């Protein structure tokens, strides 16, 4: 394991500047309610504007509507969007992972069907991994696909599905071959694509968040027909594909920037005032930690561009980054030291209220920190003393 410091090239810095100018023009501070990192609102018009700049699916091949850009380029665009609290929700999953999965494992017909519309910011994806009885132990998923003429018949339930009510498509991990007694649970799984809007037998019901917000859904399948052309890659190889997909999810700026817009807003609201030393010290501590974490996270993106598969590194960054997010929130709450009101006049306090209520999910979504530690610990065992 080795994280090598890296810096932005001249072209990369030009991209950073371009993104900043775009955001300053589109969403000047005060003109919009910033989101908390990747939990930001879904806004199709905004996704479209980003896509017009070539910033959605930018790492995908030109042939399919992408820009053949690198992981570092995407890192630059994404970090600016997230720290700004821009409404990236609609294209988020498609841009971060589904586009890459279809490109890597799908066939040309699937690439043709999905990638250009992903890159135009016109299609939103949800992730169907978790089930009521399968969380951390993902290989135990039991949504069952039975063979039928030209496809599969699906029965089962996916749960905790973020934004299935606003997205268009669903990429699901399902069991296409039953596990023999004593067999390997990781075999016989497949990834399938399902239309969330026009599928007979698909039932979608909201699971309100603890604060009443509609984020989660339960999606159940009652004899849903999935044609063969919607199976991604090889039937039965879903576990490996899914593991690759999760690697795209880990270690990026979305794992450490969630409370940034809140901290930035605190600075905006206290600017010009006489700040007490503990407040100055807190700004110092958070700034320094973000500086160091960003350097680590950026080095992971560079490793990916150099052809490495830094799975231990990205698990370490994600585990550390999401714990840092919670630490930021705790420190802000201590600093405020009075009751928070979700309708506060102060944008900072509104954001902090939101941070407190949704923060616990940060160290759970996309694999809990406990599971990430197990992954990382295995990687560490090989280290020389």
């Amino acid at each position, binding site marked *: *394991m080795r*994280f*090598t*410091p890296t*810096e932005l090239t001249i072209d990369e810095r030009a991209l*950073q500047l371009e993104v*900043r100018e775009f955001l300053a023009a589109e969403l000047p*501070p005060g003109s919009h309610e910033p989101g908390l990192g990747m939990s930001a609102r879904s806004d199709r018009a905004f996704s479209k504007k980003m896509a017009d700049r070539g910033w959605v699916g930018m790492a995908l091949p030109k042939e399919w509507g992408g820009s053949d850009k690198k992981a570092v380029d995407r890192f630059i665009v994404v*970090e*600016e969007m997230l*720290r700004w609290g821009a409404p990236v929700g609609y294209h988020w999953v498609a841009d971060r992972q589904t586009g890459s999965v279809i490109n890597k494992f799908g066939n040309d017909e699937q690439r043709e069907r999905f990638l250009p519309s992903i890159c135009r910011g016109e299609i939103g994806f949800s992730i169907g991994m978790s089930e009521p009885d399968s969380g951390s132990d993902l290989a135990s998923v039991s949504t069952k696909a039975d063979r039928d003429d030209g496809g599969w018949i699906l029965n089962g339930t996916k749960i905790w599905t973020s934004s299935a009510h606003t997205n268009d498509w669903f990429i699901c991990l399902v069991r296409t071959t039953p596990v023999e007694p004593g067999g390997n649970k990781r075999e016989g799984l497949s990834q399938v694509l399902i239309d969330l809007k026009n599928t007979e037998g698909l039932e979608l019901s909201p699971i309100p968040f603890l604060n009443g917000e509609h984020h989660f859904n339960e999606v159940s399948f009652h004899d849903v027909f999935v044609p063969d052309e919607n199976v991604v890659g090889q039937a039965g190889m879903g576990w490996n594909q899914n593991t690759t997909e999760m690697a795209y999810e880990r270690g990026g700026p979305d794992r450490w920037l969630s409370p*940034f817009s809140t*901290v*930035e*807003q605190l*600075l*905006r609201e206290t*600017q010009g005032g006489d*700040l007490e*030393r503990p*407040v*100055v*010290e*807190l*700004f*110092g*501590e958070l*700034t*320094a*930690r*973000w*500086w*160091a*974490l*960003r*350097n*680590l996270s950026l*080095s992971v993106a560079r490793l990916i561009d150099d052809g490495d598969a830094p799975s231990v*590194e990205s698990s*370490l960054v994600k*585990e*550390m980054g999401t714990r840092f997010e919670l630490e930021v929130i705790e420190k802000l709450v201590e600093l405020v030291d009075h009751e928070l009101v979700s309708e506060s006049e102060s944008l900072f306090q509104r954001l902090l209220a939101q941070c407190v209520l949704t923060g616990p999910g940060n160290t759970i979504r996309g694999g809990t920190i*406990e599971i990430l*530690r*197990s992954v*990382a*610990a295995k990687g*560490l*065992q090989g*280290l*020389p*003393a």
Partner: protein
Amino acid sequence: MTVDSLITETASRLFAEQCTHSAIQLAEAEGGAPGIWSAFAETGFPWISLPEEAGGSGGTLLDALEVLRLVGYYAAPIPAAETGILGGWLLASAGLELPEGIVTVAPGSRADTLMIDGDGNASGSVHNVPWGRHAERLAIVRDGLVASIPVAGAHVEHATSLAGEPRDTLTFTNASSDRAAAPAGVDEESLRFRGALSRVALMAGAIEKMSQLTVSYTNEREQFGRPVAKFQAVQQHLVWASQDAALARMAAESAGRQANRGDARFEIASSKLVVNQAATRATKACHQAHGAMGMTQEYELHHSSRRLWAWRSEYGGVREWSNWVGDAAIEAGADGLYPLITGGSNL
């Protein structure tokens, strides 16, 4: 700009050979390790980054910081930072002669009383002087002048850091010094930042060593019929320590790269702050994972952990540097905060 890999290889080999557990132990008992120092000095390593015309070994600041990282990794009980990028740097940049022996600096204590009069005569005390008792010269910068004071005539009172390394009080009475004008960029503030940068490099090495030691110990130590590293609760310590090792090394190397180019105050301040905190977390995790063995003199963990406890407080603790970075953040303002994080001192 990268480090010459030959430096890493040669210094690693030298330290691995010289800085055995018993040699470090002996250095502590005797208050120094002249043998290790002369082996180190023979290679010219102490003077890396000081120009050859001034009697240095040439090379870049990055090379010198890589050597310091390895000094930290191997817990080498030698005044490498003081002789090189701190004291040696002061003397060389003012055109004063570099002595053959050890140079040290006064890190700055409230209790210091040292004064230098118009004729260059020094009187008074300086405290917590690293390896003061072994130094040939004390280098001082103040009021636009660099002074080089021979230590031979000073009264030396022994004191030690938490790691058992000399941190002495030197008292001078009318000691004559060599003086020269300090060029631009060489002053008390820049020495303090360099001091912090030296500690960051040393600490990055020590945290990495400590975290690797903990991985191997917990894989050997068995309880309940299996290596304790198989327990998730122990794995948590391993993962957290290795994160802090990675964070510290990233911070140290990023700050070093910037310092090699020019103004790096933001990066140095941020790295000292982050690495101080990483040292606190990682020593806690590594000690916990070692059980009672880590509490003994016989086992080597303390060479790293005690050094980290000493270095985290030298050249500014968490309070000092969080105030510095906090002021920079406030000056950048809300719109400038993220650009500060990504652009640092180049902003």
